[in-house]
Structure formats: structure tokens, C-alpha cells
């Protein structure tokens, strides 16, 4: 797990969440995990392939997702379950997209795959056992968990070895 790949995602999460939620965001917890992943709430998994390979998982409990969806939509009404799920996927897209732009400026080329939605209680683990950095962001609307497992892809490693 290459820690220098993590910082752009931390910066991107702050760049997306703080203005969207109109409140500061802090990192409440940072840890390393090595087991396969089971969603805790509404989870969006985004895979990367190319010079950087791996996946990022955004996981929010349903109430937090609903509050964040309402906040981003500029509404006081609680968001429906379907809209909250869509919001988690869109949030994942925006944070990862912003991070990807930074990494691309650093010379990395890779493909971002569309988010896959997974819900807690479905009883399945959605990834293999892999080392991951887990960040828990605290926002005014609740906590947002980001589980990142990334490494340099084979193309990048081969190019570095030449």
C-alpha cells in the first residue's frame, strides 16, 4: 500500500465534502485493515485500473447518506432511500474524480470504473482480503468512511524498472 497515493483522496474528500455540506470536515480516525470488506451501511465501490490499481469504498450509514443527499440538494426534506444511495455513488464519483485529476497531473494514467453500490445486510463480502487504509471523516451531517486499497499497476512498475 503506497501512502503517497492516499493524500490526494484525503484532499479531494475535503474539497468535495466541506463546501457541499457547508461545514468543516475532520479526520476522526485513520487505521489499517487487512480483511475483506463488508458494507456497514450504503457503500459505493469504485475500481481503478492502469498505472494505479485498486479500489476505494465509500461507506455511510443510511441516515448520514440521507442527510448528506438533502444537504447537497439544498433541501430540508429528508432524501428517499433511493436518492440517498444515488448520492453515495455520486459523492464517491466526485471525490475520486478530484483525486484522479491530481494524480493525472502527477503523470499517472488510469481508468476510473463506474461505482458499484452495495448495501449492509446483504451478507456478502465485496472484496478480497487486501491491505487498506481506512479513513473516517467527521462532518456536520455524520461520519463518512473511506476504505482505500491502491498500489502501482503493472504498467507503472514495468516502466519504472526500465
Amino acid at each position: 500500500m503506497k501512502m503517497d497515493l492516499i493524500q490526494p483522496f484525503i484532499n479531494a474528500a475535503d474539497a468535495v465534502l466541506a463546501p457541499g455540506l457547508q461545514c468543516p470536515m475532520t479526520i476522526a480516525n485513520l487505521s489499517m485493515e487487512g480483511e475483506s470488506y463488508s458494507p456497514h451501511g450504503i457503500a459505493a465501490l469504485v475500481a481503478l485500473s492502469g498505472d494505479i490499481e485498486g479500489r476505494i469504498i465509500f461507506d455511510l450509514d443510511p441516515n448520514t447518506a440521507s442527510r448528506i443527499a438533502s444537504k447537497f440538494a439544498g433541501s430540508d426534506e429528508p432524501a428517499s432511500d433511493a436518492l440517498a444511495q444515488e448520492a453515495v455513488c455520486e459523492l464517491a464519483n466526485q471525490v475520486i474524480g478530484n483525486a484522479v485529476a491530481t494524480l493525472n497531473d502527477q503523470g499517472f494514467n488510469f481508468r476510473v470504473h463506474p461505482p458499484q453500490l452495495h448495501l449492509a445486510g446483504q451478507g456478502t463480502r465485496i472484496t478480497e482480503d487486501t491491505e487498506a487504509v481506512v479513513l473516517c471523516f467527521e462532518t456536520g451531517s455524520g461520519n463518512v468512511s473511506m476504505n482505500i486499497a491502491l498500489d502501482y499497476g503493472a504498467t507503472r512498475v514495468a516502466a519504472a524498472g526500465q
Partner: protein
Amino acid sequence: MEQFAPVKRSKDGQPVRYLIVDDSVFARKNLGKMVESFGGQVAGEAGDGVTAIAEYDRIQPDIVLMDITMPLMEGIEAAERIVQQHPDARVVMVSSVGYQENIVAALQKGARHFVQKPVKAEVLYEVIKYVMGDEGTAGQAAGAGA
């Protein structure tokens, strides 16, 4: 939401008509609210590039707001096809994946501009005014000059 002077079509004073293309309902809803705050009208929506092309043919919007990463057909290809069929089409890419390669590809394929998500209303507003050019007129904001 912040007040913006409505942007209308110069030829008939009618609201600018938008086709919003994004596989996320949430994103389409947010963009829809934004363009309505600019005095515009959401004439159609699509969740993928194939539907976007069909919808463009059907509704002939003034502006298309097009995401990039979508199922069936991605936004850059859809933009290219729309512009090939309708050279006057005004396609603005709106995407979270804003790296240089994407932006250059989109502009080379006929898109008029690129806005990165998360979209700021004031940024999109200026892009829309720019893209509409002389064919759009920004009136007075509500309460202005009172």
C-alpha cells in the same frame, strides 16, 4: 440558492432549454435545480450516451450538460456523435473526472466547455453565458434595480 439574472434565448426571449445527461439521478436533479435558478428549463434528461443522442434528436435543446463516465456509451463519444449530426449543438461536459486528457478529448470531439464536479453554480452560470454567446441574453436578477 443564489439569485442569478435569468439567461434567455435572444431570438424569442424564451428560457434556455437544457438536456441533462448523467447516469446519476442525484446529479441530474442537482443540475436541474441549478439551471432552473438561471431561468432555464429542463427539456429532457438521459442516463447514458445512447439515450442522450436520441433525446437530442427529439427535443433539440439549446444546451446539453453531459457527464463522461456512463453506461452503454460514455459522454465524450455521445458528444462527438451529437456534434457530427448537429454541428451547432452546444455540449458542455460536466464531470468529476477532470483530468487534462479527458478535457482535451472532449473539446477536440466538439464539446464547447468543461465544468468539473462538484459544480459551483456561479461557475456553471458563467459557462452557460459564454457558450450561449450572442444567442443568450442575461436579464436583470430578481429585485435588481429596485
